[in-house]
């Protein structure tokens, strides 16, 4: 079943055609990879998907509804959660509170409920606390719950971003270069985590530079170059695709 579908999506910034005529589909329960050289348009595609930008042309459908024109917070409540290429945690909040913010999309107590401390608000708050601790345990950093998030190690900050995104209870988790700056052990742990997330029913869209990671993790992947999709398919097929080799190595292998 199709979860996400992009139909001939294009985006221009001034004179730069960042994306043109991009088609891709992510199936439910899939780990889908997106690679390409620097400036290929991967992050632009991410930003179109999550409502930061709106496409000039084309359609973006998610879970049988259009995402075009939705604001980022609306996209989040539709069920797409994301992490950022440069980690964007709420630095002055504790690790636990970061995840609690992630619960915002699925909870609803407002100012009045909070001030009056109604039964419903107390229950919801207890629930948020329980869930957030569970998400911290899920990514394996529950022992850090009360630390300030900016004091976490780099790998743990990445994990916290994932936990925070999962707290929005997404159908699709979009990870923007999660392995950037990680050492080999951390990358292995990340791989295990992504597999676990998929096994628990969340589809994953992954942007990565680490080709080895993408090849070993993804069910299918697409390759972008200069804003165009030049290849799509299973890792083995894409690996041997002449267009891909040209984009990465600048020519055909002998």
């Amino acid at each position, binding site marked *: 079943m199709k979860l996400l579908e992009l139909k001939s999506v294009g985006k221009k910034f001034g004179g730069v055609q960042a994306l043109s005529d991009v088609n891709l589909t992510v199936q439910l329960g899939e780990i889908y990879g997106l690679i390409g050289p620097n400036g290929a348009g991967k992050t632009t595609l991410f930003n179109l998907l999550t409502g930061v930008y709106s496409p000039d042309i084309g359609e973006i459908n998610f879970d049988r509804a259009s995402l075009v024109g939705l604001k980022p917070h609306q996209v989040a409540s539709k069920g797409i959660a994301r992490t950022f290429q440069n980690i*964007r945690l709420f630095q002055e909040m504790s690790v636990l509170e970061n995840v609690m913010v992630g619960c915002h999309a699925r909870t609803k107590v407002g100012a009045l409920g909070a001030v009056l401390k109604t039964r419903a608000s107390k229950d919801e*708050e207890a629930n*948020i606390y329980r869930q957030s601790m569970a998400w911290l345990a899920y990514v394996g950093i529950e022992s850090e719950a009360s630390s300030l998030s900016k004091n976490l190690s780099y790998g743990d900050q990445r994990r916290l971003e994932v936990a925070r*995104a999962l707290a929005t209870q997404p159908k699709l988790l979009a990870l923007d270069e999660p392995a950037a700056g990680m050492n080999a052990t951390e990358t292995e742990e990340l791989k295990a985590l992504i597999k676990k997330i998929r096994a628990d029913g969340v589809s994953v869209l992954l942007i990565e530079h680490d080709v080895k990671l993408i090849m070993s993790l993804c069910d299918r992947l697409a390759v972008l170059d200069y804003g165009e999709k030049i290849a799509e398919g299973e890792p083995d097929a894409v690996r041997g695709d002449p267009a891909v080799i040209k984009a990465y190595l600048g020519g055909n292998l002998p």
Partner: protein
Amino acid sequence: MSIISKGIEKIRSNKRILFIGYVLLGIALVSLPFLLSNTVGRTWVRILDFALIYAMLALGLNIVVGFAGLLDLGYIAFYAVGAYAWALLASPQFGLHLPFWAILPIGAGVAAIFGILLGAPTLRLRGDYLAIVTLGFGEIIRIFLNNLDHPVNVTNGPIGINKIDPIVIAGADLTRTHEILGIQFSGAHIYYYVLVLLLMITVLICVRLENSRLGRAWIAVREDELAAQAMGINTRNVKLLAFALGATFGGVAGGLFASLQGFVSPESFVLLESIMVLCMVVLGGMGHIFGVLLGALLLTTLPEILRSTASPIQESLFGAVYIDPEALRMLLFGLALILVMLVRPTGLWPGTTRKQLGNKG
């Protein structure tokens, strides 16, 4: 974790010690005006009243600046709106004399609307740009009040509105001296209790807001707006709510000011007042409710202490007054600000590095 914080944790977890602490605090708050009027003089009770009003203002501004991270340099406008709402609805100006329980919510509501009026067009602005616009807004309100005496006279212009009704409960005018159980209570003294009560409610509301879903959303917006949006936070609504709620407290404080003073004029709402309230927030510890309270109480009482002691001290030391206490006040104030920013850039009493694990809703 240090021994001190462990000790504090121990006290917090012990209900009995906590209860005794509250009782002692209560006794201290009740007896403070008696102590002051019998030692340093009755005027000090009045000074205390104004300190409490400023504390309420600072707590309101703390929601906007401290929690949501929106630098507001025109906050005093909401104080003005609240004060004028009270003045127009309970004075001979229009011959209206509504009771306090009707005006207080009206004043708060009108201030909240002005909060949204300021918030809506500035949603996309941050930092310096927001500060400039809010500064302009504060001045616009003041200039409006100053000029609204023609073509139709609403505010009396620079002359201000006089003979504003005080709070009247069961026929008793709270600004007059009353005798209860053989003890004389001056108007300032009675107002003190009213203000303490309202300030406690304000603190309670602020604490509950901070530890709620909304409070976390505010802080998330302050820390990283894009990430907050990605978490499903409607940053527009959350920011507007911060402006509206902050303005509400400003409006209530303004109404109380008008009723205590019995007189309002535009010159009470100048830019310097906005900056003073902001200083209370920053000096005390932005985003930390009790730090902000401390900042407000210090910045309102210390200048008064200086005013009453600077001249006598100079006379006894040098035989004459060389520096006018008013000039000295600004000098020391500037010095104190610079010192605090150098030594304690997060304020005198910043929050204990955010909330710990103990919060289970």
